[in-house]
């Protein structure tokens, strides 16, 4: 079970900030699962400038995620 976090406009679009999601073994599988239930969110997660962090470290490409991973989708940041 991965904990999924959404920030900024992604959180607004999805209507939630944090969820536990079972049965996603990789970033791509997780995206596919989320896209299945919310097509617009699915598109936005792969949108321009969206970064992915696993356990608070930015990752590139598709990686496997552990059962207790924290996966955050970070849309373009606004700065402070």
């Amino acid at each position, binding site marked *: 079970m991965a904990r999924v976090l959404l920030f*900024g406009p992604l959180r607004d679009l999805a209507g939630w900030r944090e969820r536990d999601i079972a049965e996603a073994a990789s970033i791509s599988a997780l995206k596919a699962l989320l896209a299945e239930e919310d097509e617009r969110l699915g598109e936005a997660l792969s949108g321009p400038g969206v970064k992915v962090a696993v356990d608070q470290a930015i990752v590139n490409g598709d990686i496997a995620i552990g059962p207790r991973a924290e996966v955050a989708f970070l849309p373009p940041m606004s700065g*402070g």
Partner: protein
Amino acid sequence: MISLTDTPLRPGELLTRFCEDRSETGAVATFTGIARADSGEGTILELEAYPGFTEAEIGKIAETARGRFGLDDILILHRIGRITPGEAIVFVATAAKHRRAAFEACDFLMDYLKSRAPFWKKEHGPASARWIQPREEDHADVARWEKEKS
């Protein structure tokens, strides 16, 4: 020290505390950023951070500044949550042996915070709300330091 808070910042008290017990520091510079209402409109800012990650990323910026300017100490406090015009959003203090390093480090830290720090900022205006992005000027401000380094 780096900290995010959802309660109002008190720049005077922060500065007083930051200056205490320093015998080798010759200069302390500070910057306070204040939420501004544009053309009299009642805009409320909402600032979202990724707890843990945001502090760590700001920490990397601070470490770069510490090395580049040879600082004795750095304090960065950033508001999160809803901020009304007139409230301080950010307070940065730098301590160094000499004033030039303290001034420049403060400037450097703010330029990087404004464009690179992981925050998501929403502006709630009278009629609508929108997520905002760094302005061109913010990117140009950071580019200044990148150019100077090379």
